[in-house]
């Protein structure tokens, strides 16, 4: 269905205002792409001598490759832990009374609300005692905590759109 909405400003003015805000959001991010093809060491938006030298430098460097491998390891690990636990939580939340569910859900989303530095300092202190600081396992655990709320919310809203079926008694 097409929504016809009554506007109080001309379409062009609204599109210009809304469009500039959307551009403010996305354009800065997009500048990364042309800049990556620059061959100079200073920042250039439109490269004077475009090339793949930065990519060569990146893929040829053993240090960067180790870092890339570690990123992938942490991402895969966090994905696994957060997806499994977040899906379990989303399934469990569906079986609670509305009030309890809202409260518990709010609590489960808290890792995204608590300031990152507070969680970082707290996790550092406790993880250090458990010998987890400086390990990929520790990074995976911490990132799982931060990724977990996304899974709870997305799985939860996907399930909310499924029609409730009746279980045979």
């Amino acid at each position, binding site marked *: 269905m097409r*929504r016809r*909405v*009554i506007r*109080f400003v001309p*379409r062009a003015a*609204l*599109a210009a*205002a*809304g469009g500039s*805000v*959307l551009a*403010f*959001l*996305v354009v*800065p*991010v997009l*500048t*990364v792409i042309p800049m990556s093809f620059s061959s100079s060491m*200073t*920042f250039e*938006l439109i490269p004077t001598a475009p090339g793949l030298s930065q990519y060569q430098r990146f893929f040829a460097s053993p240090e960067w490759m180790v870092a890339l491998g570690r990123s992938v390891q942490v991402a895969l690990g966090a994905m696994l*832990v957060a997806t499994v*636990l*977040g899906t*379990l*939580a989303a*399934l469990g*939340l569906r*079986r*609670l009374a509305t009030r309890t569910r*809202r*409260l*518990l*859900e709010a609590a489960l989303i*808290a*890792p*995204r*609300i*608590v*300031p990152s*530095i*507070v*969680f970082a*300092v*707290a*996790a*550092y*202190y*406790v*993880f250090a005692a458990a010998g987890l600081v400086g390990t990929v396992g520790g990074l995976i*655990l911490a990132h*799982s*905590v931060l990724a*977990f*709320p*996304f899974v709870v*919310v997305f799985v*939860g*809203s996907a399930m*909310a759109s499924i029609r409730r079926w009746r279980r045979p008694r």
Partner: protein
Amino acid sequence: MKRATLARLVLLGPPLAFLLLTFVLPLLRVIWGSVFAPDFTLEFYERMWRTPVYGRVFWITLKLSFLTTVFAALLGYPAAYFLDTVKPRTRQVLLLCVIVPFFLSVLVRNYVWMVLLQRTGLVNRVLSEWGVIGAPLDLMYNELGVLVAMVNMLLPYMIFPILSALLAIPPELRHASASLGAHPAKTFWRVTLPLSMPGVAAGGLLVFIVSLGFFITPALLGGPRQMMVSNLIEFSVRQVLNWPFAFALANTLLIGTLLLYAIYIRALEGRMPRTAGLP
């Protein structure tokens, strides 16, 4: 045990146990560490309270968060209103502009702003090439730089709740207002704006809460006068190794954030779509 109870236990047990160990326990350790060092003391809170420099950091944090919220609302509302008026297909495409930046790391996005705002950066170069300015402007290492980047990063938190509030307004209401002879401006003022206010409130509260904990942006784009509480915590841990004092700061920030979050949850209970909190 009843089957239903067992199912709940099996489903919710593991995630709750996980969060308890990796999230709640570390935070409790922070609370504990801020008052027991090793005997009970309020020394660190007292120091935080008594030293004017630290008071200033809290004041700057509140001020920057407030300004970010105001600018995010001023920019977010027209964007959400525009997205509300376009066709659903167009909206889906345009919403990518809001969602895509979220996929990029916060660190990368802050670096991008450094590239754009530095004295030899893109903004300054374009402005001087067009002859708008004679000498490069100081766009970063000050409040302006921090605000621009914070608003940029937090706008989606504002746009999504406002948009879902706007989309929830039945179009008939606005048509009724128009058919009764109201000028479109009056329809907006008396119908659309009041009905979308819960979205603005939700977005505003969320932006404010997340702003309070900002760390990377003031560290990279701010100067010494833009130090926020998060930066002070990092400074206490890394530079002066004063853990109990860092714990006291962290605990204060934590309690403030959680109080506001509780207000957010209570005030918006059932009024906003459940995903409003997370874009």
